[in-house]
């Protein structure tokens, strides 16, 4: 019996050791995934497929700037991360929660640890949106590495303001698979996650910039990707993030209070009845149901995206008839994922339901998606009319169902 007890006791100790070691949760094969342009040819984009020397340099630069692997995080100078309590920039990335008693290593604290715990299975270790769950959710998780985010308060194509990311993490994106984290993380923890997401973004953007820079360089050039070149690249990347806060679009004209008249004006704008000839109905449909004619028919879309194996979506697309396939290819977002226009008859708004969220969507569009910026095309008051209309539509379906409205819209569009 005594002989038997020893292995059990030993097991206990070894389990406790394996589990209790402070860095035990950081074991495993941790390596950043490289963007495709690093090693192979990408259609119409820069790549380093035939420049092995520059590729090695780019890799070395990245490792130096951001750390060789996710376990070891470097903070490049001037990076747009927030400061922790001690004033260290990037201190939230992998810090260990500071409590009243002093710094404390908690297994699930720090941006990286929190990201691993809450985000990784969709967004992936490198932030490439390629976690193991990613193929099974629609819309697919965001690839952070281009610095582009759909629902922002900044102009189309600009980097997001930190508030935008914070809102997304805190409240989730209703209508997608991005859950709300407000009840799962503390405010401090959300900040840490935001820093880590920013880190993955700027790292990815730097990588892209290096690829682009290397693409135009000569592989034999010993001075390629020199320090000062790299410094220029990074400061450009960081600059975009630094600028974001200044670019936040604040409606210069206060919201028109929602009134039947305003809603009706918004409807007329939506249907393209005004002289501006907006084409909202072309995508969102004359009934606002997201079934406009410029887009793939929702039934076809659902069949391709939601029926069957997600990894075989390309095959299902290939089975569509020629014009539909052509349309399908046109209606992809920046990341190559299929898009569907919002169904405005249900009160589900991915980018938020506040009037200002809708204002941003209409005025400056959705980055990476096909929703264009409308601002200079129509004025602020008109945007507010459309906002009022969109907010009212789910509860007043008759707005688009009055006899003749749809047909008229159709006629105007033609």
């Amino acid at each position: 019996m005594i002989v038997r007890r020893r292995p059990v006791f030993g097991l206990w100790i070894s389990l406790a050791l394996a589990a209790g070691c402070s860095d035990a949760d950081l074991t495993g094969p941790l390596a950043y995934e490289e963007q495709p342009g690093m090693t192979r040819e990408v259609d119409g984009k820069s790549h380093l497929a035939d420049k092995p020397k520059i590729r090695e340099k780019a890799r070395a630069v990245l490792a130096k700037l951001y750390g060789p692997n996710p376990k070891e995080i470097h903070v490049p100078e001037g990076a747009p991360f927030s400061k922790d309590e001690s004033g260290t920039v990037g201190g939230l990335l992998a810090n260990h929660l500071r409590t009243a008693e002093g710094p404390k290593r908690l297994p699930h604290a720090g941006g990286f640890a929190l990201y691993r715990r809450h985000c990784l299975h969709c967004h992936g270790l490198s932030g490439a949106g390629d976690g193991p769950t990613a193929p099974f959710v629609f819309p697919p998780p965001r690839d952070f590495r281009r610095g582009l985010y759909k629902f922002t308060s900044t102009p189309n194509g600009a980097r997001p303001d930190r508030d935008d990311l914070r809102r997304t993490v805190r409240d989730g994106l209703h209508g997608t698979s991005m859950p709300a984290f407000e009840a799962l993380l503390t405010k401090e923890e959300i900040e840490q996650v935001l820093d880590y997401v920013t880190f993955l973004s700027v790292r990815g953007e730097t990588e892209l910039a290096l690829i682009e820079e290397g693409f135009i360089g000569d592989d034999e050039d010993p001075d390629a990707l020199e320090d000062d070149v790299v410094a220029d690249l990074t400061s450009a990347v960081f600059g975009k993030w630094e600028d974001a806060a200044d670019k936040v679009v604040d409606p210069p004209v206060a919201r028109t209070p929602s009134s039947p008249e305003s809603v009706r004006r918004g409807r007329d704008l939506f249907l393209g009845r005004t002289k501006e000839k907006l084409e909202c109905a072309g995508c969102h449909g004359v009934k606002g149901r997201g079934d406009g004619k410029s887009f793939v028919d929702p039934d076809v879309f659902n069949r391709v995206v939601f029926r069957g194996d997600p990894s075989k979506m390309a095959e299902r697309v290939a089975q569509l008839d020629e014009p539909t396939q052509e349309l399908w290819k046109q209606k992809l977002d920046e990341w190559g994922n299929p898009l569907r226009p919002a169904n405005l008859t249900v009160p589900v708004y991915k980018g938020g339901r506040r009037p200002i969220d809708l204002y941003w969507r209409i005025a400056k569009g959705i980055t990476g998606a096909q929703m264009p910026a409308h601002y200079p095309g129509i004025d602020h008051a008109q945007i507010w009319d459309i906002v009022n209309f969109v907010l009212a539509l789910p509860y007043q379906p008759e707005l688009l169902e009055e006899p003749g409205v749809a047909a008229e819209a159709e006629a105007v569009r033609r």
Partner: protein
Amino acid sequence: MTSADAPPHPAHRPSADAAPAPATPGKVAIWLFLATEIMFFTGLLGSYIVFRAGSPPTSYSNLYAPAAQLDRLKDARGVVLGAVGPDADGVAGAIASATGKGEAEVARILAAAPHGVVNGLDEKGAGELTAALGKLGAKAEAASLRTSNWPRPYDPLTNPLSIDLTTVNTFILICSSATMVLAVSAIQQGRKGRCSLFLLATLVLGGTFLGVQVFEYHELLEGRSYPIGISPTGHFTPEVSLFASCFFTVTGFHGLHVAAGVVTLAIVFLGSLLGRFSAQDFGAVEYAGLYWHFVDVVWILLFTIVYLI
């Protein structure tokens, strides 16, 4: 069940020519098997009854298949193409321009006439298309989106099932049960020829039943085209409604059982031709008969519940 004095084990049967035991292991087993089958059909038919008693009214829509997003289509109208008329190309063109549907889909609608459904229209569009088609000499009628619950018997607008045909088929199956009884009683009296004859009759009747059911399935699945009160696609396939799901599952599994029965009967019939059975040894005939009666009884229940109610 058995007493100590009359051991039931085959190895202990006194002799081969003694009267057969009242129950053989085979008979016990076949009864048990039938009991499990009864529970299986109870599961299927019970589900049908539960659905029928308390199913949601949206279980079936006339213009769209169940997977369509009906909330998106609240006011949708459709046009039912009754007859294509002389100008098929013109009709196809009109439908294509009114709805933007692809060539293949339009061809499918035309083929489904007199119950071709053009969906995805609003009231005005439906009216215009109806008028346009009328001008082209086609027969067309506007229809509005409705959800309906369960088909009623003898209502060709909601019920695709032919009760008359199935009544005949039911009669055939009952007859086959009768001939099966005669076959068993013949072999019990040792009349081997008569037994073979009745087995053949049962086999033929069972095969006929199966044939009629295959014909019925063919009609439902592709042979005919049905009004939109039955199916939005013109065909009665398992996915068009809860009723269709239940119908195909229940009758399909019954049909499989009949098919298995027919194969069994064929084997027994061959055995009978070869003279395998006698007044003392007719277990296989009896078991096949029990199974066959069970299939018959299930059908009568099923016919009542699925077709008649």
